[in-house]
């Protein structure tokens, strides 16, 4: 099978009037936006606002019922879903690690699925663990349940980066962490994504996280876009949904 490559074409992700309904009930949409190469777009909203659905539209786990979603200029419905997903890094909340596999095996999983040789995988896994600040000698043979929440999330990031995908999807990856660990990981993640020139679509309900990480913030409420703009524009916006979120973020 030919190796699909997402790099090099702009924009990386395009939503054109895309919406997703199930049994006639609209979950999200219509969405119209494009994510360019190297950009981080953060979807901000409460649970049930359609954030996760938006991510699943990008990696082809679901297809839009109206409009189109394209990755690297090709509609997700035209991609082989498995190939598409192997070329997109996916970071989710802590349960996303496979509990029966060691840290090494978890991080090496996508390269293995892509048919890399054991030597290439071992080298890459070591490199990735060092990249996220975990010593390969200390952590490689541990199981996820032997790690702290923060360490698990570092492994999750290392795993998403292992096959060097140009695009990363992050579904509240730091949501279950204590505030101090969360802030540290957010900063490191931002620096890493920037340094590796990754295109990132990130969803969260944490306003501060959205403002820290996003080049652009899109606010979703009940599946509809209420605001799109830079973190600066967000902070000065008079959109009611944004005002409500800003109010909450000071009291939380």
């Amino acid at each position, binding site marked *: 099978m030919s190796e699909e490559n997402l790099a090099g074409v702009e924009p990386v992700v395009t939503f054109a009037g895309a919406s997703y309904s199930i049994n006639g009930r609209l979950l999200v949409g219509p969405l119209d936006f494009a994510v360019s190469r190297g950009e981080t777009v953060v979807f901000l909203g409460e649970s049930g606002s359609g954030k996760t659905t938006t991510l699943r539209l990008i990696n082809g786990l679901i297809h839009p019922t109206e409009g189109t979603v394209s990755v690297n200029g090709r509609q997700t419905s035209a991609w082989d879903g*498995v190939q*598409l*997903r192997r070329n997109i890094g*996916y970071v*989710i909340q802590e349960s996303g690690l*496979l*509990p*029966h596999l060691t840290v090494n095996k978890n991080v090496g999983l996508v390269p293995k*699925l892509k048919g890399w040789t054991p030597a290439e995988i071992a080298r890459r896994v070591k490199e990735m663990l060092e990249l996220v600040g975990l010593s390969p000698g200390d952590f490689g*043979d541990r199981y996820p349940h032997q790690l702290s929440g923060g360490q698990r999330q570092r492994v999750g990031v290392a795993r998403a980066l292992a096959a060097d995908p140009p695009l990363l999807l992050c579904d509240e990856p730091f949501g279950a962490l204590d505030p101090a660990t969360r802030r540290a990981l957010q900063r490191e993640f931002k620096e890493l994504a920037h340094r590796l020139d990754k295109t990132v679509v990130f969803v969260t309900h944490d306003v501060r996280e959205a403002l820290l990480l996003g080049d652009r913030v899109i606010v979703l409420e009940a599946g509809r876009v209420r605001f799109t703009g830079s973190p600066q524009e967000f902070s000065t916006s008079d959109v009611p949904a944004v005002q409500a979120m800003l109010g909450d973020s000071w009291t939380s």
Partner: protein
Amino acid sequence: MDLVEFFTSNFGEVLFKTRQHFVLVAVSSGIATAIGVPMGIAVVKWKTLRGPILGLANVLQTIPSLALFGFLIPLPFIGGIGARTAIVALIVYGLLPIVRNTYTGITGVDPAVKDAAVGMGMTSSQLLWLVELPLALPIMVAGIRIATVIGVGVATIAALIGAGGLGDFIFRGVSMVDNTVILAGAIPAALMALTADGALHLVEKRLDWRGRGRA
């Protein structure tokens, strides 16, 4: 005649019957596993099969064992008198716990873990082999354990249709009204059930990821 005396003077026969009994249970549990696990997977993958297969396995389980042996005797190929018929009956009894535990084990895998695996680009067969089956394995082995322990007990009745095994002593003891002879069959059978239970329980624990990586 007391029990110790019976065992020492009939040692060869006790050993022979125990071995017969073991073969009946081992062969039938092995075949029940080979049939039951794929059935359990099929039940997960094809929802329409769920009702009929689980229902059938349930019904088969409710047939009294003595009656089942009786029903099987007149059947061609699988029936008749002897070990073959007994093995067929033991497979039938072993199926339900194996099919059901395979189904329960696979459907019990954390949806978030499955979602992550698919999100990383696993195909559905990779999801099955690399995630669902490894995580379901301890529960599947628990099903095999239950099937085997039931099999050790039911196999004693198989002596009635000429399959041999430890049931021979039990039925002989009942007709002679001699508790010593009954115990000569019942004690090795009970020990076999306990051993199988303990050994498979160890396997179950070894396969469970929760225990991994502990020094």
